[in-house]
């Protein structure tokens, strides 16, 4: 039982470089939260269903509970903490607030990362495209309706007030 494999992992998160010795079995989400103290990304399930831990890894949206930290050696990671510039919220973050697209805020970081990835690929998504893009993010507070509005507003589309 004493055998513990660990490995040095170097990553860049939101533009900052980190190097840590990591147990091989440590999940990326726990590495971000517990080792790097980036607690914005959350854990909502044990099975990869809820998406609260979503981050962008080398430009691709991933669920950070479905990857080991050691798999990300050398990678560049974006998390919710990197969305705002200084104190200025990103248009998507601002739209989430303007359209009451969050209540408890627990799913919000993952939801924002999924929507950020969507808008990079598709700057003007339809409701159906938004629904498909965030289908892997569970929200128990809003029923998603205001999230659709927020994502559309952030993409410059007209939203019914």
């Amino acid at each position, binding site marked *: 039982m004493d055998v513990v494999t660990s490995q040095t992992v170097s990553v860049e998160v939101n533009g900052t470089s980190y190097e840590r010795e990591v147990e091989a079995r440590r999940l990326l989400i726990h590495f971000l939260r517990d080792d790097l103290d980036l607690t914005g990304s959350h854990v909502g399930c044990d099975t990869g269903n809820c998406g609260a831990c979503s981050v962008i890894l080398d430009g691709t949206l991933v669920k950070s509970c479905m990857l080991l930290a050691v798999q990300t050696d050398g990678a560049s990671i974006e998390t919710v903490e990197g969305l705002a510039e200084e104190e200025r919220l990103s248009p998507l*973050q601002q739209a989430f607030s303007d359209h009451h697209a969050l*209540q*408890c805020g627990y799913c919000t970081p993952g939801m924002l990362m999924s929507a950020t990835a969507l808008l990079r690929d598709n700057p003007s998504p339809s409701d159906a495209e938004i629904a498909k893009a*965030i289908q892997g993010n*569970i929200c128990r507070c809003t029923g998603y309706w205001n999230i659709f509005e927020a994502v559309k507003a952030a993409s410059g589309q007209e939203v019914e007030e």
Partner: protein
Amino acid sequence: MSETTVAEPLVVEQGETKPGYAGQNVARKEDKRLVQGEGVFVDDVRRHNMGYVHFVRSPYAHAKIRSVDVAKALDHPGVLGTMTGDEVALLTDPFFQISSPPGAHLKDYCLAVGKARFVGEPVAAVVATTREGARDASELIEVDYEPLPALTDARQALGEDAPLLHDEAGTNLTWEGVYEWGDLDQAFAEADRVIKISELHFDRFNSTPLECNGALVEFNRGTGQWTIHTNNQFPGFAAIMMGPAMRVGLDKLRFVTQDIGGGFGNKITSHPQLVACCLLARKLKRPVQWTEWRTDFHLSMSHGNERWFQDTEVAIKEDGTLLGFRTTAVDDAGAWLRYEPLGGVIWAQVTPGMYRWRHIRLDFKQVVTNKAPVSPNRGYSRMQHLWFTERVIDIVAHELGLDPVEVRKRNYIKAEEMPYETPNGCIYDSGDYTKMLETALDLIGYDELDSKRADAESRGKLLGLGIGSTLDSGTNNFGQSRLINPELQFSGNNEVATVKLDIFGEIVVTLGTTPQGQSHETTASQVVADILGCSVDDVNVRAGHDSYWNSHAGFSGTYASQFAVTGLGAVKGATDMLAEQMKKLASVVLGCSPEEIELAEGQARMKANPEAALPFMALGAIINANNAGLPEDLDVTLNCRYVYRPPFDPPDVERKYGNLTLTYAAQVHVALVEVDPETGVYEIVDYAAVDDCGVRINPQVVEGQVMGATAQALGAATHETFTYDEDGNLLTPNFYDYHVPHALDMPPLKTGYVESASPFTSMGTKGMGEGGGAGIHAVCAALQDALRARGNAIVYDSCNPYHRVWELLSNPDESRRRVTVEAT
């Protein structure tokens, strides 16, 4: 999509310069931190040298525990210590039981003692230096179980062969109450028709907040005090459960919360786990951290009450006038009574639903089973009962060939009858249910229903329309607990706020509540700013709850649809006091009477001479740091605490009669579904939700609650159920098997509102937020309407996944056998 209007500003106090924030969609103060990932949720709280707790859970639904051996776990690297049921039985007393006997005799500890009673029940705990290490070590704890037969169907609980869960109680029927009001014999004698329904079933589910339960607990050995950073949503209740069990006074238990990732009632009964963490922090002399895993939550935490309604009889006149009903409700509490049997009375807040029938009898039998304990879940206990009354309405309409819309209009309590006293003495404060129904039908395009039906038919689909009309009773009179147990000494309700003006003019508000997304920081600042004549940006509402702040009372927390009444009532009371003191202080400084002072634009100034003004900063500085020379008798602290106490009397225990809640928000939902008759697959193609919660402080926040509750209802109506096999294994222990609504599942939604101010609250508000039950019924009714054209089945379950609809299509007689109509 949504109808957003800016209502007339609520004038809290007369004055020309009042900003009138109440009634406006003020942007949420909470959002800035939450959209940046800067909220502090319980798992974000860290302490030096903390250990991680993992619970060892029973793999059996029912088993004697012969022994628990922790030796191998203790030898595991990184393990800091363990706790077992034997230790717990020495260190603590069983939790106080709300129930009268026989439920009163249950011996409930924070870990299983002697016997495990459901799969997932914590049997032992282990603490290690890492999360993973604690989990590893938990596998090394050896528990020797002797499996016993499991009881998984509440209807079998009273059978002679039924396994007995609690020897101390001597029966699985832990609480029973027979409620009867009016004159049933007369009602059934007067009836033209009697409809009998043999059995209806409300399924077991809960709201599954995305953040599971958790705590970080520190023990201060010098003072003997625990600090419990947690996401428990009702610290007042946790404290009265934990203190006596741990044999300490409540001063030894400090509860701290900040951001909570959803609660919906499911985070009220985490007190057993919190006790285990407290014992471990003391034993191991270090902070301990526990974060529940999703699977653990599903296995063990706060399921909603599953309920059967048996042998229902409904008395009706030929024209569809409802006279009364009698039924037996068999309620499945799971293995422990952690908040129960309060569900056995809370349904009675809404005894007649929205209807005028006066003759009602309900025999409530609550039984224990080898399943997870039930606890409050959004719409707690009223949802089950209102689903039942709505089912009755639609089955009656169906069987008598009446229009469900007309039956509702004929039997709804009328707007002009408000305030309305129900048969059991509850006072519905205000409302216009018919107007709500008409608004909802307009939103859904009811006038074109025939053409919609024909259009669906042309595509091979069956279209159905269903209505759900429900009440969200808020602000409990805890005196209702005496109907459960006359020995209990609870009654009324309370909530606390403090508002102060600090040295540099900061307005600081503290609440006793524990919000989980309900925007308390925002709505509280709207109320404060309106009274003090300043901007909402000038108002600083502390995030979360801390019992060190002295801004809590016995019933503090966020639950049961009450903040807009109790929380904001406390905020208004404290701010009114502060405003009075600010005027008094300004009058002393400016040499006039307090009546000559007004608060406006961040100043206290003379009405007749606005240039004679003191900015809030000057007032704060004078009283806090520059007070020499002030008159000795000047009773001003600029730090005001107010306890809001709603006007209640204890109910009459003998008659089971009295006002159980202060306000009655209402919901009318209408669903349109299209069913594929070949497969039972259906889609909700249109949906309208109309809400009335009286005066709305922040309409956007209100609408957000309506949307969230609706989404949860649709999940419960279509997919969500905690299903057990006959051995008591939970078949839906995670989000793979337990399907909550995803973005792709959402139907189009139209919202509307009616605003009937409550005459009983200081601002005309009503508590709201739990009104989702309407959606469960709207879907059931829509399915029944759709199936009318293909077999005429009766919908008898609250949860109707596709396979159940297929069963109704393929064997409608099985459902039809449940209903008979007799002429009298």
